[in-house]
């Protein structure tokens, strides 16, 4: 079987039944795991999340935020390559989960890690660049989450909505940068995320250049 056949076969893929519900349930799973593990580790001294469950949970949720950003940005290339048009309507769900995991990550940081120590929060937000970068990524995602309803899309008009949602790109860059800057020395994991985003960005750049070349002047 050659590559073309493979593509044709993949393109014949229809939306599986109950895909939306399965996607939602799967997307909730990391949050449920994190909540259960952290609660058990803190309250019962188990070690599902190791010896430092608050840090582990904080990092776990932050990484899932980035993973869901990757899934969100993978929808367009997958549609383009395999013709899975049906995937398009799930992009919003994936994007909202990226935001939800970023918020959960932030909540763990504020309430469990820093434990509402105002001095520390103020210093973090004014002096510590990796926190500022992370906060910026979260804030960039906020208007995107707020305008994800059908009503908001209608209200803004498709063109404006599309322009506003270009913010997902700086959010992804800043989120990955935040991850890298938080590391002491070993940046292998942030680099893996960066590579994924680079591929997804690269697809868009290539498509955009091709469109410009073929478009009438």
């Amino acid at each position, binding site marked *: 079987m050659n590559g073309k056949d493979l593509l044709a076969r993949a393109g014949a893929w229809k939306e599986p039944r109950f895909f939306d519900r399965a996607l939602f349930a799967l997307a909730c799973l990391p949050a449920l795991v994190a909540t259960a593990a952290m609660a058990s580790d*803190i309250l019962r001294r*188990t*070690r599902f999340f190791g*010896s*430092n469950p*608050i840090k582990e949970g904080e990092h776990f949720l932050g990484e899932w935020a980035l993973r869901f950003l990757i899934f969100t940005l993978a929808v367009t290339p997958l549609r383009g390559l395999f013709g899975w048009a049906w995937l398009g309507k799930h992009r919003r769900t994936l994007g909202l989960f990226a935001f939800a995991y970023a918020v959960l990550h932030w909540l763990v940081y504020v309430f469990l890690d820093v*434990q509402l120590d105002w001095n520390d929060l103020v*210093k973090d937000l004014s002096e*510590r660049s990796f926190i500022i970068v992370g906060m910026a990524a979260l804030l960039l995602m906020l208007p995107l989450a707020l305008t994800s309803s059908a009503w908001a899309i209608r209200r803004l008009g498709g063109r404006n909505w599309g322009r506003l949602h270009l913010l997902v790109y700086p959010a992804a860059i800043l989120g990955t940068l935040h991850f890298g800057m938080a590391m002491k*020395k070993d940046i292998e994991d942030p680099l893996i995320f960066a590579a994924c985003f680079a591929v997804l960005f690269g697809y868009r750049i290539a498509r955009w250049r091709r469109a410009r070349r073929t478009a009438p002047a």
Partner: protein
Amino acid sequence: MLIGHAADLKSSEITPEPLYWDRRAFLATLGAGAAFVAAPLGAADNPAAVGKPFGLQPDDTATPWEDVTGYNNFYEFGTAKEDPRANAKAFKTQPWTVKVDGLVGKPGDYALEDFLKPSALEDRIYRHRCVEAWSMVVPWRGIPLADVLKRAEPAPKAQFVEFTTLYDPKQMPGQRAPMLIWPYVEGLRLDEAMHPLTLLATGVYGRPMPNQNGAPLRLVVPWKYGFKGCKSIVRIKLVEKMPRTAWNDAAPSEYGFYCNVNPGVDHPRWSQASERRIGEFKKRKTLMFNGYPEVASLYAGMDLKKNY
């Protein structure tokens, strides 16, 4: 909650005794169930801490064996906290030779047994503060470093002590990547090294040092951040000039030479004012010199903001 007088309580509200005991049994079963779930995670091995407490605060209790031996930094075996235990299993610590050299009257290469023989092993419970703002209480076993140094007869010119970790990328997978400059080196000023609190540790919890904690011989300096505690030491060298150190090389703006625990001097990326004791939820205030004020005289007149 309002606690009523005994007379306010109707007899029907009192739990009948058999039912009370049933509930107790039920709760015990739940507890056993949880223990069953936790057992595969290694919670079963929980030896009692042994040793004389040094500088412990009233609410300090020894951190469980599982955390002491399962959560630590030892980059030679990987950069994640769980890596050392997973990757140091086959690490060979016998035979082991320690070189003592540099500005000493009696340099030499010692088999570890001969190196330790002249001193009595002591069990000491110390506070341990990592630069990453977590902390533990660890029952170490070891000998005062001062014993070793005195035996080596430091020359008058000797000002600093340099410690070197084994370099063996075959056994230490972390050394195959240029994460730090290998081998790991650390240093102390001679007076810090001679301080009676400074320990060359050979064990924890009254047991031989687990490989992941720096077997067979590691440094413990309880008033400094944990990474000063050079692990799997093969060389102790007395020198005149301040030696270079691994983390200072890696990030000079973040890690100085002294690395004294100091709640007033933040790491550029996080606060050092408080710490999370492993096993506790609420953060604790970090204490100056990690709660060992007796070392303050070593730094009289020094600006500790500059000499971080």
